[in-house]
């Protein structure tokens, strides 16, 4: 290759890197709407979710809980996930965003007012082992970056089960409460991995248990996966999941 050609090629590569870097930076950091997204006007959550029904719903074969009440995302000023220290998260999750935030068992379609906006709860069954919050928000034409999601589900246990552990993976940070008690905090700029963080030993009461979670994310995909593991580390599957 001649020197001139080589110089031109290197220049071209440099320009490509620069542009790609800027695009990636912009896309990673904040942009809610690039051109491709703007053209995608017909959106749906159907690929990832179905409406929750009254039918009995068990965890999947690996014990993952797929039935959830999901609140449309609360917009936040989070522009980078590097801020998700334990202290930041405790403050963020202790903040009251809507009334009865830590006790409410919402109904499908119920709305809560957050910062002057009405946000709707959706009772859904995830088609996957995990709950793809990004797709939930995107499909509903809601913000996808700089967002805080709330999730609630009801676990009906036929018997008391002691020494279970809540197992969670989330993107990004999350906090989980079982029957009103803090069970687990996953801090940091975190990717969703099954069985990433486990709670201390917990007891699933006979009957109704309410599991509540909050997932916060700046740029990038948001999702979570939840199951319970027994004393032997095996998934708890003899439970029923509902939104009521």
């Amino acid at each position, binding site marked *: 290759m001649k020197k001139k050609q080589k110089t031109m090629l290197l220049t071209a590569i*440099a320009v490509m*890197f*620069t542009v790609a*870097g800027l695009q990636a930076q912009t896309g990673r950091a904040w942009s809610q709407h690039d051109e491709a997204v703007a053209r995608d006007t017909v959106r749906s959550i159907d690929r990832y979710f179905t409406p929750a029904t009254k039918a009995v719903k068990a965890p999947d074969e690996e014990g993952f809980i797929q039935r959830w009440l999901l609140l449309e995302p609360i917009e936040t000023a989070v522009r980078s996930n*590097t801020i998700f*220290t*334990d*202290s*930041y998260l405790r403050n963020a999750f202790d903040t009251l965003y809507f009334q009865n935030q830590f006790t409410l068992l919402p109904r499908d379609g119920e709305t809560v007012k957050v910062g002057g906006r009405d946000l709707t709860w959706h009772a859904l069954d995830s088609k996957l082992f995990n709950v793809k919050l990004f797709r939930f928000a995107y499909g509903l034409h809601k913000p996808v970056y700089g967002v805080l999601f709330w999730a609630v589900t009801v676990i009906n246990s036929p018997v008391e089960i002691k020494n279970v*552990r809540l*197992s969670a993976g989330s993107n990004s940070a999350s906090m989980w409460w079982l029957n009103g008690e803090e069970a687990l905090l*996953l*801090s*940091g700029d975190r990717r969703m*991995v099954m*069985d*990433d*963080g*486990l*709670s*201390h*030993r917990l007891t699933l009461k006979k009957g109704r248990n309410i599991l509540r979670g909050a997932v916060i994310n700046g740029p990038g995909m948001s999702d979570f996966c939840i199951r319970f*593991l027994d004393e032997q*580390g095996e998934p708890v599957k003899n439970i029923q999941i509902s939104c009521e």
Partner: protein
Amino acid sequence: MNFHHTLKAGIAILFIFIAGAVTAQIGKPFIHDPSTIMECEGKYYTFGTGGGGLISDDGWSWNSGAVRPGGGAAPDAIKIGERYLVVYGATGGGLGGGHNGRILTMWNKTLDPTSPDFKFSEPVLVAQSDGVEDNDAIDPGLLLDPNDGRLWCSYGTYFGFIRLIELDPATGKRVEGNEAIDIAIDCEATDLEYHDGWYYLLGTHGTCCDGANSTYNIVVGRSRKVTGPYLDNMGRDMLKGGGKMVLAARDRFIGPGHFGRVVLEEGVEKMSCHYEADLDQSGRSVLGILPLLWKNGWPVAGDNLREGTYEIESERRGYALELAVDFVRMPGRMRGFNRDNDEPVKPIASQQLDDVIQTWPAGNIGVRIGDYMVRPHQRWTITAVPEAGGYLGGPYYKITIAGTNRALAATAAAEVITVPTFTGAPEQLWRIDQLTDGTYRIMPKTVPDSNEKLALVSSGDSTPTLAKFDMSSDNSKWNFRDH
């Protein structure tokens, strides 16, 4: 010397030698040609050349007191049913002596010389050499074959062949009509072991009995049949001098010999030996106990953990044990692309404890597992605690955040936390065993309000807890990374 004097002496010796980071056993572990360590009624025993032997209450502090009549050399011991069979060579033999050795066996219900049941049976002759033939009948080793319950004894020295005979496990006598088989040359102090479909013949190579100049080392060959041929990793028959190294001199310990194996539980094995010379103890011959590892089907001596500062890495995912505190960012960001690569570079200081400790709470702090970033909340200092005693082969340790006295501790809920100050409480003391695969098990000395033996375990990628040790699970295993 009463118990308290013994204890004080032991502690004093430990203070002196623990600074070297690696020690043999403490107390007065002086012995030559130790037999395989036996546990009897909560105590540990090993017998040596010349009669007698060592006793230990915990496996870490050893002192004389074991009783073995018959004198002679290099005994071995094995528990069969509820009795102990002891075998020994009745003559010293050796390079400069005669070679008309005799191998004798005797039984005892207990190894505790203070027990009313302590009484050796009359010794029974099971093998001998005439002083001229190619064998010197001393240095016996025993194997009870776990496959078929047959009892085997190897014996011999450099003077000719190592031989194998079969004994009756009910009587300790030679099986009638049994003919000795030659299985090795060029070694002594042999021992037979079975592991995972293979029979192993461990022998001591080199020269004994020359203090710090002894070249003793322990080698091994293996065979699919107990009768051999025993080949080393290069395919050399031990009948032609083959042998793969198991343990040579290390640190201040010279001339290891007389292998013995102790299987504590699946994945937790120890090997015993003597070092011809402990350079920190006048070059005297001392008992050594090390983790026994199995690598690619071969036994190899492991390492008792050296004191130091480490990353404690979970074998589960490779994350590191850390304090559950706010992550403190280092200054600066990624430099960016297309910058001038001719700009001078300069080092960036690592994050120091002083940079972050003021952000930590003062009281108890939780523990989690996370990406290792070489940060102060992830650096743990492992220090032996001399006054806390030990276990087979090692002392209890405290595990503290480097540069602080903040200590890892077990809780009554069978979880782990750190307490701001190490107090010496038993839940703050940790037993650390290297496992047969080279990873480590970490166990609290006690779990408050519990009699359960629990280990530090990864319940999730990011979550430590205490649970029963399971060798088949990487959750139970840890590595100490020095970087």
